């Protein structure tokens, strides 16, 4: 319990007034000579339990009445620990709202979503507490927004969810920075969330830094977590897993794969969902609609390779086949996950530009770049010299393989623009490296790493033993990731005879046992833009050897080389693709305020398009923003998880029912009732006991006889 007028509590000692009066009264006795002492002594010997109890009760009731009066004037609040943590009107409230799609649940019997419920409860709490200093931290704006008054905050606070998964640690980092820059005496950070693990990321390494950062702050800082994880209703969610245009047939066809996920109600104990049920799925492409009935059970449903003829598209047009659409199921408790957007296009040509002074040495790379992994894809390579680079149209290039002296001057500018626009560059060491510096590194010199006696390359076991081997590699990197079935790439089987070492700032992807990197990626560099600097979209990979048999077995054991080249090509192809598929929030940079909304939430602010699912036309590219993939994870951060995340910080989790209207309430009425009850009880206890008339005790027998 806390108080709106806590200074009134200084009057609490006044509750001792009845006791003081009692003690003073005890001192103010009178001395009376008394004849009937024997009755007094006898009365004193009699049991006095009830009488003494009555006196104590009267004293207690009087004290309680005054105490209740004082507490009443101090305007007490409910909610125990919450109210204790809420502070008073001088406390600054930093509000962090989880606006992830899961907060859009409309619970049975209510018309409010979890987010609306959170905001209503916070509003009522702030209004009750008289809090006027409110700071809202939002993922979309990226910076804390200060409000001059409670009413201003209430008018401005967004009441709708978006499609992006929240990043609570990231928001708390903003709060930490704000607290550092704007220290306040007392601050309470209010976090309204349904405690989804996907939003909280309780095992994220940032929590340790947050704990240390907040503990280092001198101000009194507390965290109030409004837990809205209860009463989760049954929900169906749909998501497009793949949309691919097949144009190898006479009629272009869209291959669409999607799945329906079923989330049972949190407190559901029935197995009603085990029985197959049917749900209509509406598929839209542009202005055309189609639908199908999908049967699902407790495990959901999956539709793979659902083909839709693209009869409306003309394959002969210059821009090729390109379109967008969505799949939708009937609205349920959470309408935010009942629709999923997709885009498709005719796969673009995957073009590789090879700049080499000795193409024979890297013919294996050319071969790998020329062979498409799928029948629907087309790959093409072009071989040029560094001098011819200026005449090449780089717009259609997905991958640039550089096997020559490092670029400088205008060549470097071309390559730099290529990387900044999302291009992929693979640097292979030239035969005669110089000390040119590009992208922060330079080639040093060639050196042998295999056995000299086996330089002839005899195809024997002894020869195999003479190769240097790659001892460690990053299988969590995109380039060397495990295959789809989880098997690692056979990098350990590659043999290396000669490598060209390099120096500079790069992150090794694969290294020899002596730590010499053989494959590295250059850190992304900042690219200046009108809005500020952003990291370059492309990537630069350095390979410390060539696929020549003289240098390595990259060509002979070509699996690794082929996979790496194709993965780089796939990444590079995105820059030439006219469609983008992104995740709301994570890929917010795919769209901007100038983008045109083609489908999606029409109420979404244009400055926050990146946080909302939908179809956008951004710079002549179709972008399908999807809700965060992590939203499918319904696991909740439990109490130990929160305790581990917050550590020694002052925090409290308040379980809030959706029907609750206010987190804190004034309870002065109860104290008035207590005061009245105490006064009434005191009055009852003070009532004089009914005594026999004085004359009755001394009526003489004679008089009684006369009266009768």
């Amino acid at each position, binding site marked *: 319990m806390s108080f709106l007028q806590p200074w009134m509590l200084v009057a609490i000692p006044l509750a001792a007034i009845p006791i003081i009066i009692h003690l003073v009264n005890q001192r103010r006795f009178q001395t*009376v000579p008394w*004849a009937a002492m024997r009755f007094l002594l006898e009365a*004193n010997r009699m049991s006095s339990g009830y009488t003494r109890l009555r006196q104590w009760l009267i004293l207690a009731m009087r004290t309680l009445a005054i105490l209740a009066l004082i507490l009443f004037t101090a305007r007490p609040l409910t909610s125990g620990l919450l109210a204790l943590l809420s502070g008073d009107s001088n406390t600054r409230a930093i509000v962090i709202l989880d606006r992830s799609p899961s907060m859009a649940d409309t619970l049975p019997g209510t018309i409010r979503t979890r987010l609306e419920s959170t905001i209503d409860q916070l509003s009522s709490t702030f209004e009750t507490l008289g809090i006027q200093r409110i700071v809202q931290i939002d993922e979309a704006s990226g910076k804390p927004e200060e409000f001059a008054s409670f009413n201003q905050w209430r008018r401005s606070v967004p009441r709708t969810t978006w499609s992006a998964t929240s990043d609570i640690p990231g928001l708390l980092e903003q709060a930490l920075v704000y607290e550092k820059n704007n220290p306040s005496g007392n601050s309470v950070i209010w976090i309204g969330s349904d405690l989804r693990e996907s939003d909280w990321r309780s095992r994220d390494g940032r929590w340790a830094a947050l704990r240390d950062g907040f503990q280092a702050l001198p101000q009194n800082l507390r965290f109030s977590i409004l837990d809205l994880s209860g009463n989760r209703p049954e929900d169906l969610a749909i998501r497009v897993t793949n949309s691919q245009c097949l144009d190898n047939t006479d009629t272009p066809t869209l291959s669409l794969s999607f799945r329906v996920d079923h989330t049972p109600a949190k407190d559901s104990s029935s197995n009603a969902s085990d029985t197959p049920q049917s749900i209509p799925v509406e598929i839209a492409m542009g202005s055309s609609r189609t639908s199908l009935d999908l049967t699902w059970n407790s495990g959901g449903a999956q539709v793979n390779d659902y083909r839709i003829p693209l009869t409306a598209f003309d394959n002969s047009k210059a821009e090729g086949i390109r379109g967008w659409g969505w799949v939708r199921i009937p609205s349920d408790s959470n309408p935010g996950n009942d629709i999923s957007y997709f885009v498709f296009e005719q796969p673009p040509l995957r073009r590789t530009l090879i700049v080499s002074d000795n193409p024979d040495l890297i013919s294996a790379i050319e071969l790998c770049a020329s062979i498409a992994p799928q029948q629907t894809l087309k790959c093409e390579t072009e071989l040029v010299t560094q001098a011819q680079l200026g005449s090449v149209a780089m717009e259609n290039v997905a991958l640039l393989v550089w096997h020559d002296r490092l670029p400088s001057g205008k060549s470097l500018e071309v390559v730099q623009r290529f990387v900044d626009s999302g291009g992929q560059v693979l640097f292979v060491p030239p035969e005669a490296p110089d000390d040119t510096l590009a992208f922060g590194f330079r080639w040093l010199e060639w050196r042998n790493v295999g056995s000299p006696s086996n330089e002839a390359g005899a195809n024997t076991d002894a020869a195999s033993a003479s190769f240097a081997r790659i001892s460690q590699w990053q299988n969590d990197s995109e380039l060397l990731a495990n295959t789809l079935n989880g098997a690692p790439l056979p990098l350990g089987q590659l043999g290396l005879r000669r490598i060209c070492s390099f120096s500079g700032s790069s992150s090794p992807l694969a290294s020899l046992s002596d730590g010499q990197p053989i494959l590295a990626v250059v850190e992304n560099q900042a690219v200046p833009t009108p809005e500020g600097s952003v990291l370059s979209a492309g990537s630069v990979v350095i390979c410390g050897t060539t696929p020549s048999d003289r240098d390595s077995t990259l060509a002979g054991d070509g699996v690794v080389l082929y996979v790496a080249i194709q993965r780089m090509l796939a990444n590079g192809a995105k820059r030439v693709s006219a469609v983008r598929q992104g995740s709301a929030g994570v890929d917010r940079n795919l769209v901007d305020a100038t983008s045109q909304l083609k489908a999606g939430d029409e109420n979404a602010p244009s400055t926050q398009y990146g946080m909302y699912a939908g179809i956008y036309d951004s710079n002549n590219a179709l972008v399908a923003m999807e809700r965060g993939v992590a939203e499918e994870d319904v696991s909740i951060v439990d109490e130990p998880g929160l305790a581990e995340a917050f550590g020694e910080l002052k925090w409290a989790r308040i379980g809030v029912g959706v029907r609750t209207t206010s987190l804190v309430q004034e309870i002065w009425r109860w104290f008035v009732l207590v005061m009245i009850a105490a006064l009434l009880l005191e009055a009852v206890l003070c009532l004089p006991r009914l005594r026999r008339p004085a004359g009755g005790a001394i009526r003489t027998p004679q008089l009684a006889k006369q009266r009768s």
Partner: protein
Amino acid sequence: MLSITRSFLDPQILSRLAAVPLRPRHAMQGNVSGRHPSPHRGSSVEFAEYRKYVPGDDLRRLDWRAYGRTDRYYVKEFEADTNLRCCVVLDTSGSMGFASKGMMTKLDYGRRIAATLGYLAVQQGDAVGLSLAADQIVQNIPPRRSAPHLRVIFDTLERAVAKGDTQLPSILDEIAETVRQRALVVIISDFFVDPSLLKRSLEHLRFRKHDIAAFHLLDQQEIDFAFGRPVRFVDMEGNTALFVEPNEIADRYQRALQNYLNQMQKIVLETSVDYHRVLTSESYEHPLMRFLVGRTGSRGVR
């Protein structure tokens, strides 16, 4: 006519009370002839019985008519009338000095009752004695019927002060033994003694064939026990002091008082005591009138 100029005597009350004679409930043994029945035969005009003549009897008392009818000698006997010996026992212990605000003390009240009774008795020719009782018999005046004796009694009453413990039971025992049988013993006291001891003493008096009357004096405040704030009560018969919260103890005090009064009622019934419970707030004329009127019906059983 006796001179009545004492502060504790009211001539008007005396004149009203004088209209009702003071009579004993039993036959009394007086010193001289009087107006009250005696247990012995005497020479009054009231015939008692015939008795056979024995040698030595006065021949003048032979009933010759009876001799003529029966040829036997009978002596005709008549009732004897005697005077009353009234022994007033006034408690002068410390507790009798108690008076609530504006009221007279119990001793003053008892002084009035004793003086009035003595005056009435002497006026009708009876003897009056006085015993002042505290922790012992403070003063003892044997019963006499003369007017100067009454002045001595008044003087003694006037000098009486409330002081000392109450040893009323033992004093009553002593009076029972020292006063000749068949007297009227009037006890004026607050009787704040052990009822069982008092009962034994009253039985002792009764055994001596005394007619016992008791005036039980109580103050209104002793009944009501109405005090507003804590009080330190000091015993008037000793140094005992008790600090009490009146509101706390009032109920139990009333209970103890009621028990005591019930016991007293039972004791006086068992010992045939002419018992009068008197509040000092009422005029002493009323209890005295009740006392006298209550005795008019009895002529004294011989």
